[in-house]
Each structure stands twice: as C-alpha cells, then as structure tokens.
C-alpha cells in the first residue's frame, strides 16, 4: 500500500525529490545532446571520408552517382546545398561544380541546336550531344544527371524544362513557350514516325477532326518553328517534319 506523508515535512520531501528529478533530467538531456553532437561529428567525418575516397567514382560512374544521390535524398541531405554558399558538401565532392558545369553544357547544346529544333530537344539526343561536348574524359552521363542539372538552372529563370510525352519519352524545352496538349500528341507521334507527320495520321490515329489536326500542325510550323514543311511528299503532297524528332547521323 502506498504511504503518503502528511504535514510540512512531507511537503519538503516532495519539493526535494522534484529538484533531484529536475537535476537528473538536465544531466540526461545534456548527455543526450553531447551524444548527438558526437554522432553528428562522426557522421560528418564519415561522409567527408566517403566523399573524398569516392569522389572520383561519383564523378565518373553514373550508376554510383545515382546510388549516392538516392542515399543522400533518403537521409535528407542535399549534396548541392549546405550551410555556406556552395555548401561544404559541394566543396568536398566538387559535385556542385560538376553539376553546374553540366548545366552550362546543357545550355550550350540547347542554344546551339535551337535553330534546327526550335528549342525542343529529345533527351537521348541531348545526352548524346552533351557527351560529345564533354569528350571521352568526361565520363558517362545519364538522364538523371540531366534532370538534376536542369533543376540547378532553375534560379536563372531561363525556362529550361523537362517535358514528358505520352509514350514516356522525355524532351527538354529551352524556350519559354507552353506546349499545348495537342502539340504534345503531335510530338509523340512524330517521334514514332522518325519526324514526319501529316494531317491524315492525326485524323486516323487520334480521331481528330481535320481542322484540329491542321491547326495543331500549322501552329507548330508557323508560330513555334518546331517543324519543317515538305511540299514534295509523295503520299500527301504536304508533310510536316518535327525537327526534334528527326535523327541525324552526323
């Protein structure tokens, strides 16, 4: 049975135990904080060591880089961000520079091909041209890297965006221009056809009216400069060629 004190002495005793508890609690939390600090330091050292030892692999091996970036995001660390500008992380790895450099190369390719593709480039083609630009020593790059780099370009407000087509293909858009839904459909079909698209295809395969098909194609041709016109098409007399869907060997 629980014994309860009565009177003033009991009151004192209660006060004292309360104080002791409070003391104990501060001690405990202090040691917890210390412990946490120690752990954090350890984590930081471990990461730093990891970063320095694997730095080259991270830069060179796309699979490794991908795994590393996934690890970072699962533990809530952004390899590009940090307490200081650029971030200690980024400094340690050089990943920030790497990513920005890739960003610059993406801009380079997008701008230099804009004339022929109207500012819309297929992901594979972009990767191919960026890889060519980087040369053999640059290591392999993946779609994931491109998407990440494009995100780092965001603060510049230049409107680089990754557009997903209905069939899962991705394209990178480097002009501030909205692609409407019909255009996305046209792009997807043009991709399958090697670039060529005619009104009939849209009418037949998508059930569009001729007017809608013509409007979509003419807009892409005349307003956006995303197509080339062919007036000597054997089948229809007039065909549209979506430049970003055309494959060039050289």
């Amino acid at each position, binding site marked *: 049975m629980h014994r309860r004190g009565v009177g003033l002495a009991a009151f004192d005793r209660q006060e004292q135990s309360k104080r002791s508890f409070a003391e104990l609690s501060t001690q405990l939390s202090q040691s917890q904080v210390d412990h946490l600090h120690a752990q954090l330091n350890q984590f930081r050292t471990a990461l730093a060591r990891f970063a320095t030892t694997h730095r080259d692999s991270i830069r060179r091996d796309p699979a490794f880089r991908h795994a590393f970036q996934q690890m970072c995001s699962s533990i809530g660390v952004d390899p590009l961000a940090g307490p200081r500008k650029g971030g200690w992380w980024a400094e340690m790895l050089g990943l920030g520079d790497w990513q920005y450099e890739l960003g610059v190369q993406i801009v380079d390719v997008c701008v230099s091909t804009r*004339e022929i593709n109207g500012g819309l480039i297929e992901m594979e083609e972009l990767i191919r041209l960026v890889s060519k630009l980087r040369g053999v020593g640059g290591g392999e790059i993946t779609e994931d890297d491109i998407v990440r780099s494009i995100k780092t370009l965001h603060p510049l407000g230049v409107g680089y965006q990754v557009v997903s087509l209905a069939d899962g293909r991705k394209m990178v858009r480097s002009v501030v221009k909205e692609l409407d839904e019909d255009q996305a459909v046209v792009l997807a079909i043009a991709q399958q056809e090697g670039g060529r698209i005619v009104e009939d295809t849209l009418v037949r395969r998508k059930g569009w009216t001729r007017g809608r098909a013509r409007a979509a194609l003419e807009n892409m041709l005349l307003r956006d400069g995303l197509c080339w016109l062919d007036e000597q098409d054997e089948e229809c007399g007039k065909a549209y060629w979506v430049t970003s869907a055309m494959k060039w060997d050289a």
Partner: protein
Amino acid sequence: MSFSTFTTPTGFLLPSVHSAPPFFTQQPHPGTNATVTEQWTTLLLAYARHRKLFVLRVEDTEAADSEWAEVLRNERINRKLLPSYLSTILATMVSKNLATYDPPGQTRSVLLYWRLPEEWAEVLHGWAISTGQLNTILTFYEITDPPIPSPLSDIPINLLKKAIAVLAKTGRSQLIAVADGEGVRLLAGKS
C-alpha cells in the same frame, strides 16, 4: 530512320541534312527559313568549290543532266530543289555578297563567290609572280586558259575583270588594249 551523309559520284560529301525531305522546300517560318537557307548557301558554295563551278542558274533545278544535279536533286528520296526556292536562295546570297547576278540586270543566273574578288585578286597576283609573268602583257585568254592548268583556269572573264580591278586599286595591275580586245599587265606593286 535516320539521316546520314552521302558521297556523290564526283566525290563530294553531302551533309546529312541533304537526305531530309523537307530540306528541299522553302520554309514559311522566317527563323527556320533563315537557318535552312544558310545551310543551302554553305552547301552550294562548297560544291561549287569542289567542282570549280562558277555559275548557278535557276534553270539548273530543272535539268537532270545539269552539273549541279548531284546537289540540287536527291534521287534517293525523290526530292529536288524547287526553282522558286533556288531563286530566293540566290537573292540571299547576292545580298550577302556571296554571289552576284551575272549578267547584271536579271535574277536567274549568278556568279558564285566561293572566293571573293579580293581573294581572286591575290590568287592572280600570286600566280603571275610564281610563273614569272609580272610586267608582261597578258591577254585574258592566257590567264583563263593557260598551257599549264592554274587555279585561274576557266575563271569567267567578268570575275577576272573584278579581280584585276581590285589589283588596280593598289597599283598592281594595268588594263591594256591589245589587238584582239583587252589585256592586262600585272605589276609587283609597292610593298
């Protein structure tokens, strides 16, 4: 399907864009048109240099046996450059001083400047020096059809005259009337 380069029977490497069907149509979008026309300009000048062709006529698009057929046509994809488009391309080239209408006063035929008259002037002067013909009177025929073929062989008289005019400005040439027409004396000039 992808577009690739192609080597013609005369050994000219056509760029991959030449195998793209819409390349042969004039583009309605101004930006696109500028790009494609630029590509045509480069291609035509490169081919002219390769074959040493000086004259390009709008009519060359029509004849399958024209010396320009390899470039103006692509039988593999059944396309040919349309005369109206070639005429626009020629106008653009003339405006950029990459060609000149010849004879003047019409727009169907041009003289191509795959070397500018200033460059031809240097070629002519260099040739006269290397063959020891400075200070002698040469007929145009002796320049355009020398016994030993030179870079100036078959150069059109109009182009040759422009080159001589360029040299005259720096005192390196003198037009001289000879028995059967005109001749020129090339001089060392002040240097």
